[in-house]
C-alpha cells in the first residue's frame, strides 16, 4: 500500500466527516453518551460488588463450646473443625475474652459486668472464617454436628437474605451492561449506515470501476474508528472528572468504601477507549456489507 493510498483514505475519511458534519457531530455525541452510560454502569457495578465483597467477607461462624469440655478436648475439636473443607482460619476465644469484648461493647467503664454477674455466663468459643462466604450456612451445619459444640451462630436468616440480595444486584448490573453495549452498537451502526447511505452512489461507482472491497471499506473504517475514538475520549473525560469529584466527596462522608485504585480506574478507561474503537469498526462493518454486494 503506497503512501498516496493512505493519504487518499485519510483525506476521504475526513472530507466525508466534514461534509456530513452534522451527522458526524450527532454520531460522536451518540457514542459519547453510550460509552458514558456504559462506563457509569461498569463503575457502579464494580463499586456495588466491592461493597458486597466487604459485607460478605465480614460473615463468620461462631461456634460455642460445651461448658464442661476439657482443654484437651477443645484442642481436639479445633483440629476437627480445621479439617472441614473451606475453612480459612479459626480463632479460639476464651469466655474471659468474650466477657471483656462484651464489656467494651457496653461502654467499658459505665457498667461493670464482671461485678454485676456473679459468674461468667459465657462459653469458650471458636470464631471461624471461611474461604467462600457463600458456604457459611453449609459449613456451620457441619460444625454444629461435631460433639462438644453447644451452638453455632452466623446470623442465621440474615446471611441467606444478604446473599439473595447481592446475587440479584450482580445479575441486574451485568444485564444492564450487556443491554447498553447492544444499544450502543445499534445506535452507532444506524448513524454510520446513514453516512454510508448518503454515499451509496459513490460506493456503487467505485465497485463498478473495479475497486476492491477493502479499498471501498477503508475510508469508512477510518471514519468509524475516528467517531468511536473521539466519542470514547469525551465519555472518558466526563467519567474521570465526575468520578474524581465523587471520590473527593464520598470518601469523607459515607461509611462504605468506593474504588479509588488509580491503576484499576485507568484500566477501565482504557477498556472503554478500546470499546469505542471496536464499536466503530463493528458498526461500520455491519453497515457496509449490504452496499458492497455489487
Amino acid at each position: 500500500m503506497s503512501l498516496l493510498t493512505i493519504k487518499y483514505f485519510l483525506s476521504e475519511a475526513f472530507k466525508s466527516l466534514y461534509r456530513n458534519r452534522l451527522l458526524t457531530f450527532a454520531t460522536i455525541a451518540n457514542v459519547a453518551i453510550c460509552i458514558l452510560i456504559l462506563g457509569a454502569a461498569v463503575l457502579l457495578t464494580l463499586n456495588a460488588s466491592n461493597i458486597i465483597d466487604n459485607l460478605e467477607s465480614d460473615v463468620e461462624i461462631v461456634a460455642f463450646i460445651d461448658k464442661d469440655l476439657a482443654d484437651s478436648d477443645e484442642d481436639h475439636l479445633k483440629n476437627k473443625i480445621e479439617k472441614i473443607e473451606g475453612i480459612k482460619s479459626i480463632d479460639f476465644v476464651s469466655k474471659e475474652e468474650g466477657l471483656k469484648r462484651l464489656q467494651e461493647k457496653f461502654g467499658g467503664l459505665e457498667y461493670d459486668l464482671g461485678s454485676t454477674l456473679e459468674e461468667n455466663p459465657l462459653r469458650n468459643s471458636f470464631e471461624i472464617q471461611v474461604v467462600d462466604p457463600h458456604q457459611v450456612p453449609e459449613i456451620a451445619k457441619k460444625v454444629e454436628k461435631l460433639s462438644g459444640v453447644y451452638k453455632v451462630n452466623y446470623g442465621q436468616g440474615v446471611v441467606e437474605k444478604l446473599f439473595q440480595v447481592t446475587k440479584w444486584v450482580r445479575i441486574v448490573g451485568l444485564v444492564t451492561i450487556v443491554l447498553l453495549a447492544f444499544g450502543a452498537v445499534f445506535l452507532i451502526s444506524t448513524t454510520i449506515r446513514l453516512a454510508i447511505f448518503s454515499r451509496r452512489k459513490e460506493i456503487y461507482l467505485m465497485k463498478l470501476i473495479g475497486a476492491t472491497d477493502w479499498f471501498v471499506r477503508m475510508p469508512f473504517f477510518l471514519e468509524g474508528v475516528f467517531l468511536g475514538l473521539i466519542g470514547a475520549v469525551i465519555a472518558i473525560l466526563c467519567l474521570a472528572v465526575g468520578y474524581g469529584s465523587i471520590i473527593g466527596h464520598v470518601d469523607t462522608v459515607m461509611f462504605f468504601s468506593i474504588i479509588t485504585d488509580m491503576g484499576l480506574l485507568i484500566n477501565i478507561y482504557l477498556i472503554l477507549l478500546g470499546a469505542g474503537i471496536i464499536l466503530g469498526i463493528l458498526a461500520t462493518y455491519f453497515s457496509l456489507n449490504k452496499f458492497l454486494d455489487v
Partner: protein
Amino acid sequence: MLVQFYNVSKIYPNGVKALDDVSLKIDRGEFLFLMGPSGAGKSSFVKMLFREEMPTRGQIFIASRSIVRMKRSEVPKLRRNIGIVFQDFKLLENKTVAENIAFAMEVVGSPHRQIKKRVTQVIKQVGLEGCENTFPGQLSGGEQQRVGIARALANEPLLLIADEPTGNLDIDTSLEIMDLLYDINRKGTTVIMATHARELVKAAHKRVVMLEKGQIISDTQNRYEEQPI
C-alpha cells in the same frame, strides 16, 4: 474473441425471464449496437458483462476467461478492463471534472504522476480542455456525458460498455457523442452500446443485435443493410 455468451439464461427470483438461451460472440475491435424494446433483456445482458449480475444458466467468457466461475476477489480485476458509460452519467457532484476522472484511477491504485498525465490525455480526447476544474452541475448534458466517457477511458479498457449513453440527450448532442464513441472504437477499443435510438443505429452501419423477450431475434453480423428494423 473478446466476448462469448454460451446459452445464457437469466431468470430473476420473481420469475421474470430476462434472457433466454442467448449465444453470441463479439470480436476484439468490434462496434456493436444492442437494440430492443424495454424489458427485452438489454440491461441484464449489459450487467452480466461486468458481473453486476450472474447468469442463471450458461457461460460467459471475456478475453477467454469464464466470468461465471470467477472468484469474487477477481471481479475488480475484470472490471478494470471494462469502461462503463451510464445513461444518467453517474458523476460525483462534489468533485470537479478532473477529480471525477482521476477518481477512476485512484480507486484502482494508480500512481499519482500517471493519473495526472492520463487525466490530461483523456480530457483532450473527449474535447473538454478548459473544463478541468468545473463541477458537473455547471456543464451541459452532452459535456457531462463526455466526462462520463473520459472516466470510462481513464484505465485504458479493452471493452467500453455504453448503456443508453444518449438517452438523456438531444439528437445533435447524441450525434457528437456517437462520433466520440466511433473515434474510441477506431483507436482499438471494443464498444458495446445498448440503445433505443433507431436513427443513430441506422446512420452508423455497424453490427446490430436485436433482443426481444430475452432472445436474439436478429444479428446483422456487420451486414446491417440487409436487416429491416
